[in-house]
């Protein structure tokens, strides 16, 4: 403690100096920037090695190939230390790098474009306080012609609307704040909105569920069965703040989002996000659905599915599928389990899962892997069982689906 005294004195000196007002304003801006960097989850994508935060190099798998994130520390050679504020704003707003090159939308600028200039500059101010780290991430691995950044020009023309966020005056201030966070820094649609073949959001299905790196980010609409229809605002807040609630707990890519981003949001902003999400339309309010959502007749496998469930899963998830809320998630009525795309269900059974630890819920529970023990047909059977038992309704899963995902995950792990 003794060594702290000189710093205290130094602090007093600053406080009495003429620069006080300026320094204080700076400080507030930097702190706001730090908060917004959490809201934008910049750390998760821009950190490959935790000892080099924000120094980039994390590969992001896209359907078209791997794209490596950039170094956004203030290092002047390999980072963005030499950039002007305008360069930075242009990158966030238009997806164009300081040297004029087009950036790929794996950097979620189609969302960040909605962020106000004031907020962007606060982010910039905070990033400038980071320790500069020299690190030059590898170039992207996209196949030609996508490896030519110029192709992003027509992509942008077709799919990208750069534009400030326009509040909806008919809604509350909180709703508008929620919309600003979800559609902007939160870039929730990057995972939760289905993409067209060119990797752009299908706007008419905003937040209706999308596939991402061999996970499925579920529907966040009002649908009771597959969306957040059965969740209260408090449930949404609990989930985003602590990683779990009585309906579900986060395990896949959502873990990181919660850990580095949503668990860091203040209560007011969490309320705003929840209010906005709970006001999203359901399937019915979106597009007429072709899938009738009828329970497909079990492909003769439900008998084995039930046997496997009783022997291997009921210990944690209970034979009635109700689980032990916030410890072992209920599968009955669980939206993740009933998505049209069963990727998450199959994956969790194959590889096991662990609930993300958060400050509020530091003890993670985990589910064991079953890939060493159950065949493709057996996993298909038990996945089908959990998707159709206890009133759940979803398409059955085939052994082929399981085999495909098993091979993909296996290849990735090599």
């Amino acid at each position: 403690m003794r060594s702290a005294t000189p710093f205290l004195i130094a602090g007093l000196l600053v406080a009495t100096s003429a620069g006080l007002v300026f320094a204080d304003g700076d400080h507030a801006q930097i702190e706001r920037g730090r908060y917004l960097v959490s809201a934008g989850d910049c750390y998760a994508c821009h950190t490959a090695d935790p000892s080099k935060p924000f120094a980039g190099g994390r590969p992001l798998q896209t359907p078209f190939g791997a794209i490596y994130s950039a170094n956004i520390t203030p290092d002047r050679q390999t980072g963005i230390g030499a950039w002007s504020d305008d360069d930075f704003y242009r990158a966030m707003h238009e997806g164009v790098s300081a040297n004029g090159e087009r950036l790929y939308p794996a950097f979620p600028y189609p969302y960040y474009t909605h962020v106000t200039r004031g907020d962007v500059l606060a982010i910039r101010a905070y990033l400038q306080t980071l320790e500069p780290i020299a690190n030059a991430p590898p170039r992207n691995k996209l196949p030609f012609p996508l490896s030519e950044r110029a192709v992003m020009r027509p992509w942008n023309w077709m799919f990208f609307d750069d534009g400030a966020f326009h509040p909806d005056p008919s809604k509350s201030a909180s709703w508008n704040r929620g919309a600003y966070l979800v559609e902007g820094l939160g870039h929730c649609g990057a995972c939760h909105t289905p993409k067209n073949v060119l990797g752009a959001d299908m706007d008419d299905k905003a937040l209706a569920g999308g596939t991402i790196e061999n996970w499925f980010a579920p529907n966040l609409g009002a649908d009771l069965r597959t969306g957040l229809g059965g969740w209260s605002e408090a449930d949404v807040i609990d989930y985003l703040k602590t990683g779990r609630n009585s309906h579900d707990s986060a395990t896949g890519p959502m873990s990181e989002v919660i850990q580095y981003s949503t668990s860091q949001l203040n209560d007011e902003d969490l309320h705003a996000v929840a209010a906005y999400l709970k006001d999203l339309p359901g399937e019915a309010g979106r597009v007429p659905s072709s899938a009738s959502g009828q329970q497909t007749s079990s492909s003769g496998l439900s008998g084995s599915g039930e046997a496997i469930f009783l022997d291997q899963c009921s210990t944690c998830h209970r034979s009635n599928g109700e689980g032990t809320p916030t410890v072992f998630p209920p599968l009955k009525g669980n939206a993740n389990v009933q998505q049209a795309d069963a990727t998450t269900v199959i994956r969790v059974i194959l590889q096991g899962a662990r609930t993300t630890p958060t400050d509020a819920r530091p003890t993670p529970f985990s589910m064991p892997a079953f890939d060493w023990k159950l065949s493709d047909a057996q996993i298909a059977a038990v996945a089908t069982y959990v998707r159709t038992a206890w009133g759940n309704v979803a398409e059955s899963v085939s052994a082929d689906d399981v085999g495909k995902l098993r091979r993909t995950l296996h290849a990735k792990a090599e």
Partner: protein
Amino acid sequence: MEKIALSRRQILAGGAAAAVVATERPASAHSIKGEVPWAPSQADAPHAIDPGGYIFFTPQEAALIEAAVARLIPADDLGPGAKELGVPTFLDRQLAGEYGRAERWYMLGPWRQGSDNQGYQSRLTPAQLYRYAIKQLDAHVSSIKDGRRFANLATEDQDALLSDLEAGKVDLGGVSGKAFFDLLLQNTIEGFFADPIYGGNRNMEAWRMIGFPGARYDYRDFVAKHGERFPLPPVGLQGRPAWSSKG
């Protein structure tokens, strides 16, 4: 992750190690901070035995073992016996593996005579003990039953011999016949009731016989159902037939 395997040697040395623990930590210990490590697809999967013929036993040894276990747990109207349920294969794989080599036991001196409740006391590993005792037993049989082998005796004669072994009436060339009998009986019971993944208890028949539900660990649905029969069939580490049924 490193497995924690304490050998008898480490336990014996523990007293001395405790004195220096403050300055020197055992190399195998490591602390986990923050959260319990977890990675996808991690499993401490048990290894199923390779099916097929004997690996450890010679044909003659196998003949004696098959005959002996068939007397220790014979087939009767309750169900199949040790031989039918694969116990000889279980013993074979155990003796060929780390159990046979006494890999996890302290096997050095001092060689003072231990008491019965001190467990396995032989200087021989289980594999060495079986091999030696089987040879001696057949030699003993041959000498008293004019050249015949244990496996060829009538079952009553086999029972009489096994009883003599158990009663400590037979010396197997310096190895106590009782020690061999006790080990064989214990291992036979183990093979009869162990998970089928290890070669015995074929199709979980032994579990079915005694109403043991197998590798289950949740009975909450049944705690209030006093006096009722548990309805589910046994399940092994590799599942049960219903896991692969259609319908």
